[in-house]
């Protein structure tokens, strides 16, 4: 039995290792990461589908924990990889999510000074175009893009999460950014009209 360390919270890898013989310890990983995984999943799927998907992520992680590479202290990439793969099974929910965001992205009160209105209009327009762009991306490119933009993972972490090379991360990210830029090209017209 591992003695509790007096020097602060334990590494994820230590928790996972201990959970192999004391499964109840795995709950600590849920408490550490539910929120951050939810933020990512809610953005992609909306809150209802996201709750179940994040819950499922921890069930899958628990059932696969004996395969976790304990040389990685930080379990975040592993967990983000699982949730991303589960999101891939909710293709239609994600597509519907982006379509809905296209129509009314994060509505906010736009009454106010002209420059604020302009900024709001631009933000709304940008959101709408971004939502459309995300819906149009190839799934693999979108996964990499959003793990970076919404998951805050580094290239190396994305590579670990998706079990691909760092080079592949780079090329998918570049392709995704190019496509998004194409969609946002229309935005300059909006800025000109209101700026």
């Amino acid at each position, binding site marked *: 039995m591992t003695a509790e360390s007096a020097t602060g919270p334990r590494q994820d890898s230590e928790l996972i290792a201990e959970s192999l013989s004391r499964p109840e310890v795995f709950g600590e990983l849920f408490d550490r990461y539910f929120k951050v995984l939810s933020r990512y999943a809610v953005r992609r799927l909306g809150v209802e589908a996201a709750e179940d998907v994040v819950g499922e992520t921890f069930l899958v992680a628990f059932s696969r924990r004996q395969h976790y590479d304990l040389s990685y202290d930080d379990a975040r990439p592993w967990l983000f990889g699982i949730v991303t793969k589960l999101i891939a099974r909710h293709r239609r929910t994600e597509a519907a999510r982006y379509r809905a965001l296209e129509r009314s992205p*994060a509505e906010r009160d736009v009454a106010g000074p002209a420059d604020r209105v302009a900024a709001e209009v631009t933000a709304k327009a940008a*959101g709408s175009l971004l939502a459309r762009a995300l819906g149009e991306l190839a799934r693999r490119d979108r996964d990499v*893009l959003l793990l970076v933009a919404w998951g805050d993972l580094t290239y190396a972490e994305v590579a670990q999460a998706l079990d691909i090379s760092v080079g592949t991360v780079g090329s998918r990210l570049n392709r995704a950014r190019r496509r998004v830029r194409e969609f946002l090209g229309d935005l300059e017209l909006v800025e000109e009209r209101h700026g």
Partner: protein
Amino acid sequence: MDELKMLRDFGDRLDHGPEARSARQRRRLREVIEQEALARRRFGRRRVMIAGGATAALAAGAAVVLVMTPTSEIGGNPPPAQAEAVEVLDHAAAATPAQPPPRGDQYVFLETREVQQVTSVSGGKVTNRFPRSHTRTWLSVDGTRDGLSRSVIGRGTALEAWTRADCRATKPRDTVVHDPWIARPPSPARTFTQDCPPRPAYRATLPTDPGHMREYLYRNSHGNNPPDVQAFITVGDLLRTSMLPSKARAAMFKAATRIPGIAFVPHARDAAGRPGVAAALTHDGIRNELIFDPRTFAFLGERQVLVAPNDKTSLGLKPGTVLESTAVLRTAITDRPGQRP
């Protein structure tokens, strides 16, 4: 234009909506964790391991065999056994019915109920739960055939496990969890092969003489408790996981009367809620009870009660709490695994 920054800002705005709630998802995880903790405990507590079970697969290394010496031979003055406790065990020895021995190709059927104590720690908060299970187990009489265990745990989760007679454990076959929450079955795991002799569930070769049986109990008790306590626990293990010929069973109860420090408990209950009297041995603040029917002295089950502060108290468990309990509802012989007697 930095499209990554714009995406990040877009994402931040999306966060202004309703947040995901964790309570239900936390519960889903807890149930799955408890199922596994229960499966482990069934197959590998500090008590008996059924060969090939999930925990046997996970434990690496060879089993260490310790030869236990009864405490009274080492020295010190353990308290004398209470007369009433001896009486209970004597009655139990007299109450064992004679049965014809089964055939080697048949199965020992055991139906049990269990209540376990599971502690989970999250965010510094300690929660104690007491999941209940109802199990039917079929074990090969001569130990050469695969056995089967079926449990219903908690709110109706069914667990089925095969115990391999040749001691190989393959996880997907050993634990098949029928639970709607798990989208796909556990991924295939490594296969472990262990050297182990067949474990007959009908213990035809156990001593029938109390003196030799006492030696057997001490020699074959493994665990972290002192020898007397471990031998006492072994009595419960044998009754819960095997069938003893009636003479050996009687010898076992007689042998237990000679464990120093056993005490009488007038009011006890097994995991099925059946009231009984018990012979008990207390160690490190935990009272281990063997419970018997107050009229017939048939063996009912076991119980562990926290009676004094110990390291369990730091988990928020108070003295008086029943930690774990078992109930042996039925033992019988069947021709096939899965067949109800």
